[in-house]
């Protein structure tokens, strides 16, 4: 089994976000960067597949130089190889354009399964896997909380979370893309020997020329959706703490909900 995992490096969700002077993006200095939490489930699932069927796990990420750290984390967990897609021209790509860049390298590789996270927690798009599916002409199952492979018949069964606690069982032909949700597995921590080994593993770096891409088709120019600006939401102000004995306070609350908030 050849398994490819697409990962993204994102700010740790605890990190404070500041906007740059022209509000075109966030201040990237002083941020703690981590592997997108959902991508950890994807890496873990890839390793489990490899443990069961043998094969190779390759991690691919498009991003700035610092993304190497996220790739190293995946290698330390046990992935075999890493590829960093890095070129100034890729900056500010939207989801579809990101998928285009990723698809260029994937189309040169052999794979049976592609794993991604269900969303990157920076821009929360949940689109990249769908774009990949289109460029590579593959099926995908999103928001999966379970999967099983049947390599001899080139099929997989995946369990997908929908709404109201409902789950769909979907059969797809391989190769296919799976976008992972929490609950799929418990990602392992990198062991110390794993971290040592990861230092020696190869991380290939590819740029625009290596992928035969036209600079017009990537980055902000190539993107169909354009970000105009970022801004902070109106801050919720702390409201009223209702004082007094609990029974009175509760009665007061209900009164406020009816009177001011017009609920009930």
């Amino acid at each position, binding site marked *: 089994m050849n398994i490819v995992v697409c990962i993204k490096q994102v700010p740790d969700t605890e990190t404070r*976000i500041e906007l740059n002077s022209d509000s075109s993006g966030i201040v990237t200095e002083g941020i703690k960067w981590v592997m997108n939490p959902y991508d950890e489930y994807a890496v873990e699932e890839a390793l489990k597949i490899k443990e069961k069927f043998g094969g190779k796990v390759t991690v691919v990420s498009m991003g700035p130089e610092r993304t190497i750290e996220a790739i190293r984390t995946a290698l330390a967990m046990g992935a075999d190889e890493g590829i960093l897609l890095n070129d100034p021209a890729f900056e500010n790509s939207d989801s579809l354009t990101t998928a285009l860049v990723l698809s260029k390298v994937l189309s040169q590789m052999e794979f049976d399964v592609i794993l991604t996270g269900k969303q990157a927690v920076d821009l929360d798009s949940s689109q990249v896997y769908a774009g990949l599916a289109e460029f590579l002409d593959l099926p995908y199952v999103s928001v999966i909380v379970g999967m099983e492979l049947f390599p001899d018949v080139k099929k997989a069964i995946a369990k997908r979370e929908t709404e109201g606690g409902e*789950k769909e069982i979907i059969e797809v032909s391989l190769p296919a893309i799976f976008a992972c949700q929490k609950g799929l597995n418990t990602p392992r921590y990198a062991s110390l020997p794993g971290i040592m080994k990861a230092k020696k593993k190869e991380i290939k770096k590819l740029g625009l020329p290596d992928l035969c891409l036209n600079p017009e088709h990537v980055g902000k120019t190539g993107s169909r*959706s354009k970000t105009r600006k970022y801004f902070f939401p109106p801050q919720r102000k702390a409201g009223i703490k209702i004082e007094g004995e609990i029974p009175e306070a509760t009665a007061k609350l209900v009164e406020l909900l009816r009177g001011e908030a017009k609920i009930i």
Partner: protein
Amino acid sequence: MPGIWIIAEHKEGRFKKITFELLSLGKKIKEKNKEEICTLLLGSNIENLTPQLGPYGAEKVFLLEDEILKDYTNESYTRLIVDLARTHNPSILLGGATAQGKDLLPRVAARLNTGLASDCVNVEIQDDGLLRITRPVYAGKVLMEVVIPDSKPQMAAVRPNIVEVLPRDDSQKAEVIKCKPDMRKDDLKSLLKEVLKGESKKIDITEADIIVSGGRGMKARENFKILEELADAFGEGTAVGASRAAVDSDFAPHDIQVGQTGKVVNPTLYIACGISGSIQHLAGMSTSKYIVAINKDPDAPIFQKADYGIVGDLFEVVPLLTGEVKKLKAEG
């Protein structure tokens, strides 16, 4: 023929509320761009649903009915929607940021090679015909404004409960255009085999108007019963939610988890019981219209975001609250 296209969503013979929300949004857009509002309705045995669309603003309904469409898959639905869009070139295509919409719209956008804004909290049309779309990013800490200037249709996945449903006008009827889907099971690479039902809940938290949510402070699974009772007192449209700490401690199922790794909810009223108010929890509920916090720690961060707070033991407050709500409801 341009147009404002809306993907209808239905389940078990009923439209989801998002369908009417999208139609209402469509009407607002139409005020400016004067284009026709068309609804795409896919499924099997659904023709009887079509009369409900006109009164909410649909002028045309593309009805795609076939046994093969009984079960949604992104593959089959994408193919049919894209074929229609290629024929008619709508300028705008809207869907819900629901489980189905989030799975479907990105694939439609990719195939049409156009832009899609996910999980939008505001969509307005400008004089130049461009949608100005707002969506939360970085766990809701920041908002982003997006436009899709160079490709058609402009696509947006709109969060449920963001748009107010405009009153229906029963004199309005939509023209129904039946399209015969040309598709065979053998053509498809993915197939829905089975649906596993969840614990039967009245309503999904993403659609709820009032959410009563419990955190680690609930201490045990059984105790969620008092939240259920409060939810029942509020009546229809109310659901019970949970923090991740409550879910991880197995007090509540994962599908009612609110927050960054759970669901994003948007109710009129969110009541947080024994929830501290972590960044990741807030990411899922901070756009609620009213937030009530019940927490015994006066310094809990949730009070910084709550419109109304009671400092106290939830096991005392919640049952009293249930009583008060019941009393009011009884008074009518």
